[in-house]
């Protein structure tokens, strides 16, 4: 133990090895504790909850009457937006919430305790995922039943895609918060990360109509598959192969970005 190896190098084994046995068994409890805590924090901020849940609904109502004369357009754009809203809201909420955790010192404190990084990330994803369920269910229900959004497929599939989009938004927000030094910067990441995807996702024009380079770029952006998935449900009565592919890609991206987000959490900082 009294060698002169760098202490940083030795912690590598310490973090994974010694707590591995108990931490793995108990992480469910710590994950749930984290999720409960995040929800409890939100409960002290009812205005944010109201904005998160109501704004997408208001936008859909607005959209419905903007396209009052062309219900076909509302169907296409409305379905796409049902996938995009949860992504954007959760991106914003998560990036700010985790940034606050980083800057307030509570992240350092939690990581100095026996809390696994996966516990923390999963806890956040759970809490915001729950919020996303409420938001997506309300928006989807409103669009399909009250605003007459005409979907050929099942509304439940719309909800599924919306949920995965929310998870993707949470993952992206978590990841991006590592590169923001202030809440000001975190908000600026929204146009940087979300807007290009919004322009290229096929909302404004079908992706095959784009300039080939842009189409190729849109092929590697996850939001494209979120919108494609929504459109599959819009047009097909049954679950199509393309729908399954879209859903898997969005879910896969969310998991990969969540893992990248976990990698940005450092127990030791300069």
């Amino acid at each position, binding site marked *: *133990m*009294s*060698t*002169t190896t*760098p*202490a*940083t190098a*030795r*912690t590598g084994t*310490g*973090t*994974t*090895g*010694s*707590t*591995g046995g108990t*931490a793995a068994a*108990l992480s469910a*409890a*710590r994950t749930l*504790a*984290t999720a*409960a*805590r995040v929800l*409890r*924090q939100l409960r*002290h*901020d009812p205005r944010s909850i109201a904005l998160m849940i109501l704004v997408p609904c208001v936008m859909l109502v607005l959209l419905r009457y903007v396209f009052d004369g062309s219900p076909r357009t509302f169907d296409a754009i409305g379905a796409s937006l049902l996938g995009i809203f949860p992504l954007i809201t959760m991106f914003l909420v998560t990036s700010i919430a985790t940034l606050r955790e980083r800057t*307030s*010192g*509570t992240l*350092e*404190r*939690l*990581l*100095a*305790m*026996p*809390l696994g990084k996966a516990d923390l990330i999963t806890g956040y994803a759970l809490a915001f995922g729950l919020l996303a369920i409420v938001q997506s269910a309300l928006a989807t229900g409103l669009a399909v039943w009250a605003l007459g959004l005409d979907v050929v497929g099942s509304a439940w599939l719309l909800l599924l895609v919306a949920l995965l989009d929310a998870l993707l938004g949470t993952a992206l927000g978590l990841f991006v918060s590592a590169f923001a030094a202030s809440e000001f910067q975190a908000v600026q990441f929204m146009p940087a990360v979300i807007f290009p995807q919004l322009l290229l996702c096929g909302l404004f024009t079908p992706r095959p109509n784009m300039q080939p380079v842009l189409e190729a770029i849109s092929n590697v952006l996850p939001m494209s598959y979120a919108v494609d998935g929504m459109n599959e449900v819009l047009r097909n009565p049954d679950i199509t192969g393309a729908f399954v592919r879209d859903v898997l890609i969005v879910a896969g991206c969310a998991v990969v970005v969540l893992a990248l987000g976990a990698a940005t959490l*450092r*127990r*030791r*900082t*300069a």
Partner: protein
Amino acid sequence: MMNSIGAAAIHARGLTVRRGDRTVLRGLGFSVPPGQITGLLGPSGCGKSTLMRAVVGTQAQVTGTLDVLGRPAGDGALRARIGYVTQAPSVFDDLTVRQNLDHFAAVLDPGRSRRAARRETVTRAIDDVDLTSHADSLAGRLSGGQRGRVSLAVALLGTPELLVLDEPTVGLDPVLRRDLWNLFHRIAAERAATILVSSHVMDEAERCHRLLLMREGEILADDTPDALRARTDSETVEAAFLHLVDQANALQESAR
């Protein structure tokens, strides 16, 4: 030093920390005896907080040997055994005092079956820092000193063997400061915990069992308050500290 290395709660040899291109700690060697209060004193910017972060295992770029409670600093098994209070209060402003402590307690001692035990430690920790009447207030609505005490209460959860406290009494009134120091002594005596506490306030130094005096990333003295005063022929620790700093400055001048 007067303690055998094996029994020391913290043992450092050749401990060096770099932050960016600046060397903040330069080859420190010292031992902190277990079950005692060791004060870490020195002008601001001398590396006190960095040393504490290294002990807790949150500091990157640490080289040399640093053993804490018999394990290398930052070892995963140490996380439940160390209570750490940062200089700026690190609590959730949008949770109440009790909710804050509930959460940290659930991380330290998780599981539904431990709920009753957790409630007890949380209530005790709130009482320890004298915040019982504010238990249901949002942390963000409390005064600076009160938020600092919430942060301290978090470190008291789960009966840690080592408490690392970075200026825990800054901005507190004399009565509260006295009460907290009594609490530190009680914790050291009753729970046989080791306490490493940094401070600017020299009259607090008199209340420590041992002192580490730091200056510009080096340790000037490692001794008991009595021995320091005797060695420098001073009335107070403050005078002893100033004497040692002047001496070190003079030495540096003449070396140039």
